[in-house]
């Protein structure tokens, strides 16, 4: 085990992960709650309405933050999957396993909020011909596929390898989602430019709320994923001495 890759094994120790995240959790939760509150209040009360969209632009603060974070699931699962396939480290798979359902939530919320915005702005809830919309829907189904694949395979190590491979291949779709609005004609608008000057088009008064919300949503992603992974550790390591001591001490 000695050598250049030893740090990976140390990092991959479920017990180390559990102890480290125990220290992080209060800070993570505090920062998330603060930024989520600031972002929401700013978006609902202080964001100036766009001259075309009016108050529906408040929807996009949530939509953009959640949509951006939803693109991080396949890359995250692919990195964890590669570690699973190459180094057979259990912790990486525990993270990947719990990322899939959370990613499905993120993708669903992206689709739902986009649809609610589009029903007013575009005049349609859904367009099958828009590549941005369809590729995001594909990501949602792909994540459901990863979840079902794991559920269908009895052997945990085989299931982990199959899901890891699907996650790596699924990253292609993330690239398609991201560039769909630039490669093809779509109803969906391309990403907005950012201006640093207050009072100019795309000025900070429009994007600061979204930026705060984006950080808050990433913190939420981390927090939720860590909580789920810790549960996974308790279950899979339930026979380890330290977990039993923890369970006895907690009740």
């Amino acid at each position, binding site marked *: 085990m000695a050598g250049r890759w030893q740090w990976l094994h140390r990092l991959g120790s479920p017990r180390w992960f559990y102890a480290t995240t125990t220290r992080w959790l209060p800070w993570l939760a505090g920062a998330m709650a603060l930024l989520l509150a600031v972002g929401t209040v700013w978006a609902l009360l202080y964001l100036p309405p766009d001259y075309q969209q009016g108050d529906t632009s408040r929807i996009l603060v949530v939509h953009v933050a959640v949509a951006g974070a939803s693109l991080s699931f396949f890359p995250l699962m692919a990195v964890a999957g590669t570690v699973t396939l190459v180094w057979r480290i259990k912790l990486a798979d525990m993270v990947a396993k719990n990322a899939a359902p959370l990613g499905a939530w993120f993708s669903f919320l992206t689709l739902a909020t986009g649809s609610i915005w589009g029903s007013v702005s575009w005049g349609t809830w859904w367009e099958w011909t828009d590549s941005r919309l369809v590729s995001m829907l594909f990501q949602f189904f792909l994540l459901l596929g990863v979840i079902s694949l794991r559920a269908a395979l009895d052997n945990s190590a085989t299931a982990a390898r199959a899901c890891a491979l699907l996650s790596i291949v699924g990253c292609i779709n993330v690239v398609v989602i991201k560039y769909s609005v630039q490669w093809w004609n779509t109803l969906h608008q391309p990403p907005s430019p950012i201006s640093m000057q207050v009072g100019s088009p795309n000025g900070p008064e429009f994007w600061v709320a979204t930026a705060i919300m984006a950080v808050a949503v990433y913190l939420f992603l981390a927090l939720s994923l860590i909580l789920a992974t810790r549960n996974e550790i308790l*279950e899979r390591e339930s026979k380890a001495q330290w977990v039993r001591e923890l369970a006895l001490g907690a009740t």
Partner: protein
Amino acid sequence: MLAELQFDSLQEFLAMGGYAFNVWSVYALFAVFVFANLALPLRRRRLILRRLAARGDLAQSPAAAEQSGWEVSTVGEELQEQQREQKEQREQEEQGTKP
């Protein structure tokens, strides 16, 4: 100015310029999404700990761990072992200096 209050009254705020349904349903969905994905793992944690405490099974044997197809991480155990040794050593030293 970077941020100015956009509404003059509560009614105006709730009406959202005529898009009350769209704006409020998005924020309601967002609230459910955030709440559910924090509350459900916390609830599951309580259930797991309760179940584990009620059960007292033996530690997994190294042979069974080997068969699972996963790399066996011993870092936690190694650290624990190290700490125990250090503690014993300290205690021995303390005992050695006392009499």
